């Protein structure tokens, strides 16, 4: 079913909307959740919550790209769950690898300018990505937006895992530099 038709089902308050969303996007949403939530039960709950969130927000929203909309909801829910798990199991060494990797790029603690920083941060991300060659950009987005594993990325790009790790390491260094230059890394 076309995305437009699925969105119409949401607007018509038809429960088929969720069934059709599941048919088309369950794998996609699950792959995003799995990157942060190794526990299958958590993953499943996260994906179901994403459908529910879509149900609650469409209408009034009418997303143009349903895949990205669902992906973003799933991603945020997985991060929320991860935040909760982090608090619950602080110090247990169960932080997902992807969070550990990106940790070195994270600016300082919240300040009065936190909201301003977030907007500026997103613009800085866009500029940083624009300056990366296409393949490196895709690899970076696969890792930190889709939370794809190093193995999946290496396989999809026909590269060794070592090479993917090296590309990500360099790109994280460039991102940190960009954040520092723009005064966003405090």
């Amino acid at each position: 079913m076309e995305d437009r038709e699925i969105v119409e089902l949401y607007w018509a308050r038809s429960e088929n909307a969720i069934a059709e969303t599941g048919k088309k996007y369950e794998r996609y949403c699950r792959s995003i959740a799995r990157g942060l939530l190794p526990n299958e039960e958590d993953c499943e709950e996260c994906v179901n919550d994403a459908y529910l969130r879509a149900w609650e927000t469409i209408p009034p929203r009418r997303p143009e790209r349903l895949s990205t909309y669902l992906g973003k909801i799933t991603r945020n829910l997985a991060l929320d769950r991860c935040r909760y798990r982090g608090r619950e199991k602080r110090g247990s060494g169960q932080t997902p690898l992807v969070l550990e990797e990106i940790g070195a790029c994270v600016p300082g603690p919240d300040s009065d300018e936190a909201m301003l920083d977030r907007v500026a941060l997103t613009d800085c991300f866009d500029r940083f990505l624009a300056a990366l060659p296409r393949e490196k950009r895709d690899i970076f987005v696969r890792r930190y937006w889709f939370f794809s594993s190093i193995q999946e990325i290496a396989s999809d790009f026909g590269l060794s895992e070592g090479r993917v790790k090296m590309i990500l390491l360099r790109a994280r260094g460039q991102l940190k530099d960009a954040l520092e230059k723009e005064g966003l890394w405090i």
Partner: protein
Amino acid sequence: MNTTDFLSAFGEISETYVETAAATVGKAGKTSPRFRRKMTVLLIAAAVCLCLMGAAAVGALYGDSIQSWFSHQWELVTKRDMSQGQLAVIDHLSQDINISKTVDGVTVTADSATVGDGTFYLLLRVEGVKFSSRYLYDFHDVLMELSPDPRDEGGTFGGYGYQYVGRDGDGAALFLISFNYAGGGDAGKDTSPLQVTLTLKDLFRDAAREKTLQKGEWVFTFTVDRSQPLEAVALPDTRVEITDRNTHEKVQVWLRDIRVTSVGIRFRLDSASGIFTYADGLRLILKNGAEVSRAGGFGTPLENMEAIEYSYQWQFPVDLDEAAYICIGTQRLPLP
């Protein structure tokens, strides 16, 4: 800010990047291993120039100045030679730098710059290595320091990007660096010379197996003149429909203080609390119907958070006498 908040902010990146990366999911299963690498190289080749300046084939041969690079871009987009007016605009904004540094036989020349409102482009030539159209080339690090740094102005944000753009007629590799900034206050009004210190580290060939071609540092110090007067056209405040960054829905917003120049456009976008928007579909339409898209730029939230100051650059400088209107969202803004 903690790591999850940081990654949550990363979730707001441009959808274009998300979609192109999404297209790579499972692509290994769709092609045979033998062809996969080759296709990836072709994809990179197709994307590199699109990323910074629009369509141009990597490995294509350009002339040896920044004017020739922009001429090439003009011809690609408009399918015709540059007019005298267009030539005059690019010449007016361009300046020679012509400083070379050599490390073990590899010479990098900071060739020329094109300077505009809140932006400048710098062309680098690299000689002393046999460059091939089969590969992309890169430096492991490119560091540019500016004095005075426009980003030191309160509320001003800026950044630079660089890209390998192909080879010139002598087989030298060409790199283009672009720097732009935007902000409230006087950020765009300072026309004093910019002292630039540019450091390039380790030239390498980017392919399936990365290969360092020359280790070392090439350090340049030069001045960019920003005093060239720039023709600017002010447009009336306009209400337009664009996409909300958070909800992806269409929203109506006011664009104010619109200022169009031959290198780009600036405007302020009123933003209801908590709503931030893409200036989507922004492009300049020429009288002959050709479209000049935006190459780079960004928005800076102003102090009260009720407006965002945007500054975007065109793919190349344009003679405004040849421009018909600006498109943003579904709206057309005619140029006088």
